[in-house]
């Protein structure tokens, strides 16, 4: 493969990479007064990457580079990450003051790059690295986010626990590699099947162990029980714009990775692991919603709500790519749609906190929000739209997201062994949504009908308000036109199982005899052939 291959297939990633480095350099040439050149440059970079994504279109599902495979999941993830990424940049526009803005903005870009690579990873190592690439910049972002001491505290909590989660993830991946005998993801399933995965004699049990460790590591990223404990403190400690980012970036990466890992095993999970995900989903929703009831700090409320939303998303993850009929029969599409929508609505809620300050401090507690409804009616309205979307109320995209997730759970064929449990889980989800409404309404009430009003000072600046407005408009827009997202998310239903499908292709290709070596033949898996040629060269 030549340079042009990289340029054409990796265009958005390369734009982010080069752009991120350029923004770093802009940060180095610091001037005395804080300018927003770095923010503006990052906005352009993400915008260019988005254009590159659109112009490339949905990639050929079989195209690959070493360690990467471009399924339509990649396309969706690019659109989602970059689209919400634009909003994130707007909300973070003035976050870092002065000197550190270049570093700050570059970290955001690198984090987005990590998501993109997570989606296209076709190698356990690349997957691990991509997840780390998502996480490491967020540690820095939290630490840099504000002068208050809660920021380093949040950073140290997130970083240390994140390091532990990374170790769990690495350990799990090492077992998966050990069982499968390969790090190439689409071959893993072959290796695992060969080692009699499900109730294995041989090494099968280590595949389960590996899967559990990997699940643990990724559950930390998406904040699922029992790996959710850090979330409230970290969300509270980081500055609001960064918290908005934290609700989306690790979550999207984590869920995309989970989809890839489960897809790598063709969703043929042992029953025990299905039950594990079931229990984790139920516990996650419940813990998140229930603990949010006690909070007075809006950021902590939203943090717990973020945990609860992870629970809803886990339902869809459990349903898997292809279930039965109904309005939404595809759990993965429901999941992908929901993550994106969640990212925007959550960001919108935090954008409001970022846009106003009370008594010289950024708005944070419920009492800080009092009087916003009168003093800034438009911002309050946008906030209310986002919160109603979080609540799952029509006419917002959050409502459709919940409809998709729950209907995907109901859509499984009634003869299926997991039909009953999934229905019960969906019912638990609906009950939890009702509990959730209680604290979301407190947020809205704080804005509109609180008594002792505070003097609310708009400090966020125009970009933040723009971000807030766009978030709320997106909620309404995707209620009216969900197909814009859902159609692309649904395209994944078959390719998510690329592990299986591609493995079949490989098998047939290898059984058909040696590949044409002149390079004119249909070389489907470059990575694979490279390894082969590499080993050939070693033999000589």
């Amino acid at each position, binding site marked *: 493969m030549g340079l042009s291959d990289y340029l054409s297939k990796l265009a958005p990633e390369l734009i982010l990479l080069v752009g991120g480095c350029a923004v770093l350099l802009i940060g180095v040439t610091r001037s005395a007064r804080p300018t927003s050149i770095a923010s503006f440059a990052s906005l352009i970079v993400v915008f260019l990457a988005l254009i590159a994504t659109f112009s490339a279109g949905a990639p050929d599902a079989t195209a690959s580079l*070493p360690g990467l495979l471009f399924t339509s999941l990649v396309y969706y993830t690019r659109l989602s990450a970059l689209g919400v990424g634009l909003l994130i940049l707007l909300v973070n526009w003035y976050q870092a003051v002065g000197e550190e803005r270049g570093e*700050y903005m570059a970290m955001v870009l690198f984090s987005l790059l990590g998501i993109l690579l997570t989606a296209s990873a076709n*190698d356990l190592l690349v997957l691990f690295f991509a997840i780390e690439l998502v996480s490491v910049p967020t540690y*820095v972002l939290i630490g*840099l986010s504000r*002068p208050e*001491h809660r920021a380093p505290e949040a950073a140290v909590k997130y970083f240390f626990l994140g390091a532990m989660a990374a170790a769990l993830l690495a350990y799990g991946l090492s077992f998966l590699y050990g069982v499968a*005998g390969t790090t190439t993801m689409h071959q893993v399933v072959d290796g695992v099947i060969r080692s009699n995965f499900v109730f294995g*004699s041989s090494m099968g049990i280590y595949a389960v162990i590996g899967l559990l460790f990997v699940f643990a590591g990724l559950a930390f990223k998406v904040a699922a029980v029992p790996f959710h404990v850090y979330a409230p403190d970290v969300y509270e400690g980081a500055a609001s714009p960064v918290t908005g980012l934290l609700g989306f970036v690790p979550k999207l990466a984590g869920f995309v990775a989970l989809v890839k890992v489960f897809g790598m095993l063709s969703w043929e999970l042992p029953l025990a692991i299905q039950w594990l995900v079931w229990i984790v989903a139920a516990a996650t929703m419940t813990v998140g919603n229930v603990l949010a009831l006690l909070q007075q700090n809006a950021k902590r409320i939203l943090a717990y709500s973020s945990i609860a939303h992870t629970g809803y998303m886990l339902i869809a993850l459990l349903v898997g790519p292809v279930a039965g009929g109904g309005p939404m029969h595809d759990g993965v599409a429901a999941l992908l749609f929901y993550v994106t929508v969640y990212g925007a609505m959550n960001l919108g809620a935090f954008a409001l906190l970022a846009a106003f300050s009370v008594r010289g401090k950024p708005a944070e507690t419920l009492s800080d929000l009092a009087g916003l409804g009168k003093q800034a009616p438009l911002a309050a309205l946008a906030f209310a739209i986002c919160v109603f979307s979080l609540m799952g109320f029509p006419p917002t995209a959050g409502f459709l997201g919940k409809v998709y997730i729950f209907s995907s759970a109901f859509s499984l064929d009634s003869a299926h062994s997991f039909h009953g449990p999934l229905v019960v889980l969906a019912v638990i989800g609906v009950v939890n949504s009702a509990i959730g409404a209680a604290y979301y309404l407190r947020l809205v009430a704080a804005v509109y009908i609180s008594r002792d009003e505070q003097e609310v000072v708009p400090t966020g600046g125009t970009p933040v308000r723009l971000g807030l407005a766009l978030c709320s408009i997106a909620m309404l827009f995707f209620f009216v036109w969900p197909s814009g997202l859902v159609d692309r998310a649904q395209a994944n239903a078959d390719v998510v199982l690329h592990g299986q499908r591609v493995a079949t292709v490989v098998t047939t290709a290898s059984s058909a005899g040696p590949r044409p070596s002149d390079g004119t033949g249909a070389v489907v898996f470059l990575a694979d052939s490279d390894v082969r040629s*590499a080993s050939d060269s070693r033999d000589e």
Partner: protein
Amino acid sequence: MTSALPQHAYALYAIFALGALGLYCLLPRTERARTIPGIVIGSSALIGLLLFLGIRIASPTSASVYFCIFSALAILGGVRVITHPKPVYSAVYFVLVVVAVAAMLILLQAEFLAAALIIIYAGAILVTYVFVIMLAQQSGRPTYDRRAREPFAAVLAGFILMAAVAGQVSTLPGSQDATSRSARMASDESLPAAADESADPLKGSNTAGMGVLLMTKYVIALEIAGLLLLISMVGAIALSKKRAASERIEEEARPIGQIGKEVKPF
């Protein structure tokens, strides 16, 4: 399915329980020390472990002896890393772990990696550690280094997890049975053999094989690694030069857990 290890994991669980007890005794504490019983219990557990791992070896080969020695060293070093009350010593013991692991890697014919491990860890990372430890050195021995936090629960959690992982070890094939893997492949007719068996990359130069692999199959991963290191560097600089108001509190004036709020035991 041949296995190098006994089928029953109960012996292993017993050894782990013993080791956990020993470790619990050895973790630093301010009240009366239990160092001597800790050492006794711990070392008996270690010997038991070595016997368990080496039990099948009727005639000890040099490789298995080396394995026993280095794994014992690694475990001992690991125990000291987490039990030594002085961080500097912990770091030094960590070097011991790294060296022992490197030696085990050589036993596994991963020479290049062994060298890389020592160079990267002992040579680079550890030096940085020691540097920071020196930078943040406090007078005397701070209380928090002398008292472990909830040692019992920690040991329990760690060893339960370890027992779960290691308890399944009998299902793993022994690599001394050179044909085992091929036999496994051959026995299952329905699945084609994965990779060509002819090219054993472990033959010949291990370093060259690694080099080729890094530049072909893992080239993207390599690029990401480079980017990650860059991010780490930039992030570390940005964080450490960040201006932050000091809230220093003299160590002696402050009982444990008194900044912020009282932290109840978990």
